[in-house]
């Protein structure tokens, strides 16, 4: 069987998972918070972009508004609510974002409905690139390129800027960082801001490649977490590769028998569970729990 078409179709989904996974790891490293609301932030962004498109607002403005709102919500939570839980353990901080995810999911489902077959069309859907003899929509290629570019930018931010230095210090030890004068709340707020931008972009891309649905978008976070787990919640490049691998697992499962293909969305979870059972938590950031 020629698997190339499936590999090619998994590129777009893998790129989104990679983007989401890297977004989660950046925030987790800097603040110790695993953001379960990442998918919901993305959902808000995608729905707003779609809503504005329906109102004949130029598409780029819709995307910018969507990403800006998801970034605003992420920043607002990180700046004003998250610090209240800063001294609770990591589970409590993660569970709190679960509450935010549920709140946003309820809001989206209430306003836009659930189970309605919708898709956020993008202008790049009509253009194709031929890769290994397989036609690939330009949106998927852009998704991959954008993910790579954003991961590289974050790498540069972490290694070349003062904010990046602060983030690395927080990832190493929050208390010592605070003692030596790192502005903890400010750095964490920046991490939430970056998380919001990543979520906004990932949401718009997923609403195009998969579907525009509150549940699908909110629970984008689970395969993204699976990918982040494969990077032990600590390595950005690992998170990127984990995301690409998760996308490929889903795509390749489609190529198998129809029964297994129906179970494809569970693929990344199973892969992450097997990874955890065999490799373990190791010395990643989360291992300190």
């Amino acid at each position: 069987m020629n698997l190339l078409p499936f590999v090619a179709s998994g590129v777009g989904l893998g790129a989104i998972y990679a983007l989401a996974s890297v977004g989660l790891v950046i925030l987790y490293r800097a603040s110790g918070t695993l953001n379960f609301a990442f998918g919901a932030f993305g959902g808000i962004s995608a729905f707003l972009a779609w809503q504005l498109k329906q109102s004949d607002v130029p598409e780029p403005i819709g995307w910018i508004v969507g990403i800006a709102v998801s970034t605003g919500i992420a920043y607002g939570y990180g700046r004003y609510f998250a610090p209240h839980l800063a001294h609770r353990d990591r589970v409590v901080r993660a569970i709190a974002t679960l509450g935010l995810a549920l709140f946003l999911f309820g809001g989206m489902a209430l306003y836009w409905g659930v189970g309605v077959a919708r898709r956020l069309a993008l202008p790049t859907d009509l253009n194709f690139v031929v890769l290994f003899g397989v036609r690939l929509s330009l949106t998927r290629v852009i998704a991959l390129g954008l993910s790579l570019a954003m991961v590289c930018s974050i790498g540069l931010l972490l290694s070349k800027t003062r904010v990046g230095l602060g983030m690395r210090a927080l990832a190493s030890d929050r208390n010592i960082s605070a003692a030596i004068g790192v502005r903890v709340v400010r750095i964490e707020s920046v991490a939430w801001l970056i998380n919001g931008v990543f979520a906004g972009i990932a949401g718009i891309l997923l609403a195009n490649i998969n579907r525009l649905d509150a549940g699908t978008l909110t629970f984008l976070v689970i395969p993204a977490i699976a990918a982040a787990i494969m990077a032990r919640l600590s390595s950005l490049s690992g998170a990127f590769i984990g995301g690409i691998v998760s996308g490929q697992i889903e795509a390749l499962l489609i190529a198998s028998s129809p029964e297994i293909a129906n179970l494809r969305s569970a693929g990344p979870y199973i892969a992450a569970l097997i990874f955890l059972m065999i490799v373990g938590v190791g010395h990643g950031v989360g291992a300190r729990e």
Partner: protein
Amino acid sequence: MTEVSQPDTVTLVAQAEPEIAGRLRAIAIVVVVGVVSGIIALTCGGYWLSNFTQSYCMVLAVLGCALLYGQLGLVSLSQWALVGVGGWVSLRVYHYVHPPFFVTMLAGGIGASVVGMIWGLPALRMRGLYLALVTLMLAGAFQTLVTVISFPVGGPGFLGQVGASGNDRINMARPNFASSDTSYFLFVAFITMLCIFLVEAHRRSKPGRAWALIRKNEQMAVAAGVRIVFYKAWAFALTGFVAGVSGALLAGLFGQLDGSAFPATTSIVIFIGTLLGGYEVWLGSFLGGLLTRFVPALLIDLNVNTNVGFMLFGAALLFALRDPLGLGGQLTLLAERLYEKIQAQRKS
């Protein structure tokens, strides 16, 4: 002499107080569950009776979640999936051999208990956030799996499915003495009470002490001779059993189950219910479980979109995290203060 007698007196008091507290707790469980169930059985019918029966099934799921979080500090986000496992196993056993309801229920409990222990295996190597993630992924994987394979409905083969028309579906029978909706509700209430006693008995005895020590410090627990793997597996088996019983009771309520009724979101709501109710006391699980079903049912009854329920639970979680006692814990504290006041007045 004083040096010897004083510790003896303290020991006697320390021994007497738990006994009294234990008796009071047992009375409180019977009175609260009995009175609440009695009022529901006398005043509700149809829609509300069905929803309260489901609420009691939720109570069982919350009970397990609270045990794991309160006793061992383990966050389980897959409790509703375990209820689904119990329901699947009980329906499978029922359609194979048509045993009495109690056997079906026990099969569901044991099946979910075994699966719960297997799901708990990661807990032997990790805890905290990683365990929460693992259980959430298990809940997601179960949601996908059960949507694809669905629940047995009396057809041939292991999966027990029938043709697309679905005309040959067979319902699981309720116990003979609980065939009406009201009697079945009271039966579910009785089983819920037994499960609360089962969990409380564990909390107040040797396993409870072992769990408390494990939570405090695993190395200390090992030094004290506590078998970590055994007692952790025990906790997962117990919570799996209770969830499995809940699944069998749900299957008995509707006669058959649908895959779409077991989304990962419900497992999250179960955990929120655990925090809202309070995970330290049985009353917290009872109230938390009731709330998780009562709120959506009330919204439907008031013609309000059920998605408002998700918003309410989400917002409630953000506030519940600031109050570790929860609703049940606050009420228990109030009752204890009241009891102490009455005792002090009697003495004076």
